């Protein structure tokens, strides 16, 4: 018997945003005369889905279908200021800014609709399908397109809104470290199962089970993308990646994707995920940010699973076959722990 299975767990929390630098983001929302909305941002979509999630936030807030909203990102001449896409701040900060802008735009839209329908704006509601009607009297209705035309060509109103979300900078006490580093925290717990070859030190992933709490999954498919891809990156960090394989000795740095090790499509394992939603008081619809924290529990869970499998602790990353083998040899052989 040279291959041993083991399971390990880790649980983590993750701070959202970067209050320590001051943390503003802005958004502008406006309608064109056909009642289609543009969100102008200078925020970046580097694959995490910024354009898509802010689009849903805007549509929900305006009360229009998501197809009627287009998010334009990252043009410094048209998009208002944003700190950038980092610190898990996109969904939370930019989302809040878009919400605020959409709320203001919705206010103008409802006023314009009220004028057309000759009612009080407070008596109107959106149906989410592109119409505005009198509460309790759906037949007294006007399309957002007609409202936009009226606003532009008849009433002289700009259906638009400005939004900013700012967390004032938090200073840090030099003596105690007292500070307000973030506004909310996401949470996770992950169980990793591995198989360890005690003759070669090779570790293979067998499966993962996890629970992530994200405030609210604004778009479960986008959340799934982050969690699946992020956990893959966690495996990668745990077992493979390093630009300095002999750190702190800087030699033998990788030059290409053969030398820089990341798990291939043949190294992945089944991953069963549960998503919990405990809304953050200041998150857009309660959302926190799933983007960064998803990798973090994987690293220690894998290390702990290796201990469970063969009884060795590797406290240095990445947990290469060499490190596992050295530890097994130092211990005088594998010592599988109680199966979990």
């Amino acid at each position, binding site marked *: 018997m040279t291959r041993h299975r083991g399971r390990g767990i880790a649980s983590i929390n993750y701070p959202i945003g970067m209050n320590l630098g001051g943390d503003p983001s802005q958004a502008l929302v406006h309608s064109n005369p056909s009642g289609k909305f543009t969100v102008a941002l200078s925020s970046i979509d*580097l*694959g*995490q*889905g910024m354009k898509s999630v802010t689009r849903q936030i805007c549509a929900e807030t305006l009360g229009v279908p998501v197809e009627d909203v287009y998010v334009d990102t990252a043009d410094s001449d048209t998009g208002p200021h944003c700190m950038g896409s980092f610190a898990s701040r996109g969904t939370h900060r930019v989302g809040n800014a878009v919400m605020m802008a959409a709320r203001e735009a919705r206010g103008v839209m409802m006023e314009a609709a009220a004028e057309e329908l000759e009612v009080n704006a407070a008596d109107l509601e959106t149906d989410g399908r592109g119409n505005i009607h009198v509460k309790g009297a759906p037949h007294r209705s006007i399309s957002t397109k007609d409202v936009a035309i009226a606003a532009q060509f008849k009433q002289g109103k700009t259906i638009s809104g400005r939004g900013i979300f700012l967390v004032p900078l938090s200073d840090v006490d030099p003596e105690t470290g007292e500070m307000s580093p973030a506004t909310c925290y996401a949470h996770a717990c992950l169980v990793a199962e591995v198989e360890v070859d005690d003759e070669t030190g090779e570790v293979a992933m067998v499966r993962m089970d996890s629970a992530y709490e994200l405030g609210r999954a604004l778009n479960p*498919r*986008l959340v*799934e*993308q982050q969690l*699946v*891809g*992020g*956990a*893959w*990156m966690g495996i990668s960090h745990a077992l493979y990646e390093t630009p300095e394989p002999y750190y702190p000795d800087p030699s033998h740095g990788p*030059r*290409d*994707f*053969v030398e820089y090790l*990341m798990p*291939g*499509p*043949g190294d*992945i394992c089944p*991953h069963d995920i549960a998503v919990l939603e405990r809304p953050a008081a200041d998150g857009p619809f309660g959302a926190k940010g799933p983007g960064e924290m998803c990798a973090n529990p994987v690293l220690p869970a894998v290390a702990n699973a290796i201990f469970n499998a063969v009884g060795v602790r590797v406290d240095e990353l990445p947990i290469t076959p060499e490190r596992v083998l050295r530890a097994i040899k130092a211990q005088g052989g594998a010592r599988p722990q109680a199966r979990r």
Partner: protein
Amino acid sequence: MAKTALQFRHNGRDVAIFVDGGTNLLAALRELIGDMTPKFGCGQGGCGACSVLIDGELHLSCLTLAETVAGRSVETLDSLKDGPNLHPLQRAFADNFAAQCGYCTPGMLMAAKALLDRNPQPSRTEVIEAISGNICRCTGYEPIINAVLAAASGGRARA
């Protein structure tokens, strides 16, 4: 040294360009023909973002000397769509959320097409093998594998 005249079929149309000696096909496609679908990811043959089909075979355009495609047929992602209709692979990638940043997607799709053109009903292992030359840093590969399997089964099931 003068430029060399080069003619080949690009996505079903004849093109003629002049290339400098040593120009690779990726640069020729992007800079001289204006087909931006193949991407530069490494120039080393390690990431597959520049993958194209040459006479139906999967090749890395960054490692292909442009003039070696003279008289041959080069297909890029730009050829996959049939007018407004997405190719089943494109549809399956979308349905399976198999792209995040999107940068590896053109190469992935070409690698997947090369597979399905020869093997319309691949196993999961064959799909993994087919995309093994393509690096994706975002998705963890699982949605991509699922997308190719779904396209292979006519989009009927998420395998």
